[in-house]
């Protein structure tokens, strides 16, 4: 009785029927895993080997449901909660619009699970070199023989005993395969090198594409959202005599919901009192309004040094200067309403709350950029 370290013992049979007859005889007597190799699919082999039902179906179902759920969550979050945007007058959370994406993501998750699950889980993909593929039996099996292999499942195979059992079951040629453990994934060095190669080639491809498009602009970049037949803020327009694209509100009109504003002189507005209290919400609103409407000329800090140069020659006011700090809330409000020098009126764009909130925010900027020592919290 010699016992060698072997990966598997393969017996070859002449017909599918002989193989099917042999499986039950061998199955009860040997340790390890039984594996059949046939040149074409043979009915009944799965049942005879007692293979478990493939888990792929369940995985695909679960992943499909996860796909549908994640599509639904993504759409509900983006178009209903985080960035609600009216499309064709439909409600923000319109399930009808969500269905196609849900369908697509269900299919995507399910097919990827099926494909990758089959390759990695069932075909044991990292195993590149199955000993069977280099055996002498394999060329015969791909032609007209039917192989039955007893594969080591961690334990030592009693080669002689198994050979005897296979012979008794009707096998003709017996081959003993020594070699790799059942799962021999690629070496860490190989995996590392492959990852490195993939990384480098992605970088090279990315840079080539980037510079290729930059240096040889065969197609214009996608700027359809910018490229619209409308006037952007601060854009000149030949249609009007004064050349301004941004217009003052038509005389004797007010924005919807606003009351007429009767104060004509800036000093007279000093008696107006800011109706809003300085809460966090108000200041946040002021900051947003400032960023959207004021910062392109006055600068994000209000210091009159914007990133956008004042192309029309006027120098925007420095809102954090002493002169501005000395102005009352009402006077600043008045300028927003009426405009001053090159600055147009914002009465049509901002409602009353927004105007007063931005006044508060200007005060915040003034304080922040002229901070004193005692402002520092210690």
């Amino acid at each position, binding site marked *: 009785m010699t016992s060698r370290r072997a990966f598997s013992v393969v017996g070859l049979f002449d017909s599918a029927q002989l193989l099917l007859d042999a499986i039950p005889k061998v199955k009860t007597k040997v340790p390890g895993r039984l594996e059949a190799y046939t040149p074409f699919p043979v*009915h009944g082999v799965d049942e005879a080997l007692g293979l478990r039902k493939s888990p792929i179906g369940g995985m695909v179902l679960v992943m499909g449901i996860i796909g549908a759920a994640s599509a639904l969550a993504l759409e509900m979050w983006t178009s209903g909660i985080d960035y609600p945007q009216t499309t*064709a*007058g*439909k409600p923000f959370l319109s399930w009808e*619009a969500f*269905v*196609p994406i849900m369908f697509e993501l269900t299919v995507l998750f399910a097919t990827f699970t099926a494909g990758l699950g089959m390759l990695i889980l069932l075909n044991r993909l990292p195993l590149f070199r199955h000993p069977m593929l280099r055996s002498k039996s394999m060329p015969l099996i791909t032609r007209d023989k039917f192989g039955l292999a007893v594969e080591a499942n961690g334990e030592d195979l009693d080669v002689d005993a198994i050979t005897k059992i296979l012979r008794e079951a009707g096998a003709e040629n017996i081959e003993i395969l020594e070699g790799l453990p059942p799962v021999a994934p690629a070496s860490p060095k190989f995996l590392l090198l492959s990852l490195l190669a993939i990384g480098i080639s992605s970088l090279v491809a990315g840079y080539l594409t980037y510079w290729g498009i930059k240096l040889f602009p065969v197609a214009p970049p996608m700027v359809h959202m910018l490229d619209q037949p409308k006037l952007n803020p601060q854009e000149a327009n030949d249609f009007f005599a004064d050349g301004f694209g941004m217009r003052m509100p038509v005389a004797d009109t007010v924005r919807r919901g606003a009351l007429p504003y009767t104060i004509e002189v800036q000093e007279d507005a000093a008696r107006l009192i800011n109706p809003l209290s300085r809460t966090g919400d108000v200041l946040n609103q002021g900051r947003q309004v400032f960023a959207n409407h004021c910062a392109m000329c006055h600068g994000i800090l209000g210091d009159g040094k914007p990133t956008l140069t004042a192309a029309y020659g006027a120098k925007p006011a420095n809102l954090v200067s002493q002169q501005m700090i000395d102005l009352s809330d009402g006077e600043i409000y008045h300028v927003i309403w009426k405009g001053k020098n090159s600055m147009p009126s914002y009465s049509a764009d901002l409602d009353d709350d927004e105007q007063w909130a931005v006044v508060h925010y200007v005060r915040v900027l003034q304080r922040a950029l002229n901070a004193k020592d005692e402002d520092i919290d210690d």
Partner: protein
Amino acid sequence: MNLSTDKKLTVTAVLGLLGVIVTYLVGDMGRFWMNWILWFLFLLTIGLGCLFIVALEHIVGAKWSIPVRRIPERISGLLLLVSPVAIAALLSLEYLYPWTQPEGLADPIVAGKAGWLNAPFFALRVVICVGLWIIAYRIFVGGSLRQDQDRDPRFNIRARRFAPLFMAIFAIIITLVAFDWISSLDPVWYSDIFGVYIFAGTFLSGLAATTLALLSLKNRGRLQNVGPDHMYNLGGFLFAFTVFWSYIGFAQYMLMWYANIPEEVYWYEERLHGAWGILVLGLAVFHFLVPFFLLIPRKAKSDPRFLFWTSALILAAHWLDLYWMLFPALGRGVLFGWVECSFGFLFLSAGLLWIRRSMKRGEDMPVGDPLLNEGLEFRL
């Protein structure tokens, strides 16, 4: 009482007939003819669906389906039963179809369609369709029955040559059925995809009827050598076309919902609100969700009891689909009472009696088909 199934069915048919006659005498013509159309279309779609299955099997040269082919062949005999029903249904035009009335034609859109929607042309189309489906039935089914006797393999070649032509004929018939009988109840409405939607329901109900009949016959000890692998294929078909029906149904709805054009959405306006809104929910659940999830497991597609009830559910949902499309056109809310039950008794019993009568004669399988044995040996 220990009556045979045939006697029971005859009793229900007679009871139903009495109810139908009373309905006619009471004079509620709108309701009478709407029920008539509903049951006419229910039987017609099953029959057409089965004939389509037969043609499909010929066109692709399917072998697995040869042992079960006699079943859709027998069921498509419903086409002969519904032919007089179709001709009689022409009497419904003046009661149900607004384009037959001057006030209906007052709408400019309907007036624009008057060249197509007028009684003589409509009747001509119906007669042509009836003629076409009778001819197709005689070629496929008559030929197959003759082959039982003469064992002439040339029938297979003839059927395969005719099948592509039949596909074109079938497309025309099913589109006309959809547009003429159903869609023109609301003549303002436009939907290009409607024919495909009706086709999906037709094929699915044909498959469900075939599966149901196969399993009933197996329960009675016939067709014993049709195995689980054949049933698995039918189950797979049912699964696929449950999805197809839902896909087309939703595609039609979503485009109209997005575009929101009055002459398109009003059809859904009528059918998505109030009690109809609940029915459409039932349609989504029983025509899609339940069969879809029921049919996912591999075992479910070949388990006879399971497949039996799923097919029955799909047929019921197909009826509900037709009911939901047709009855809102009456504008009288959800009608369901003894009138509907009487029609159901009469037409369902008559249809079942018709199929049972044909199944009692002749062979259970196309024994003259030279490929029958290959079909019986089919394994997945």
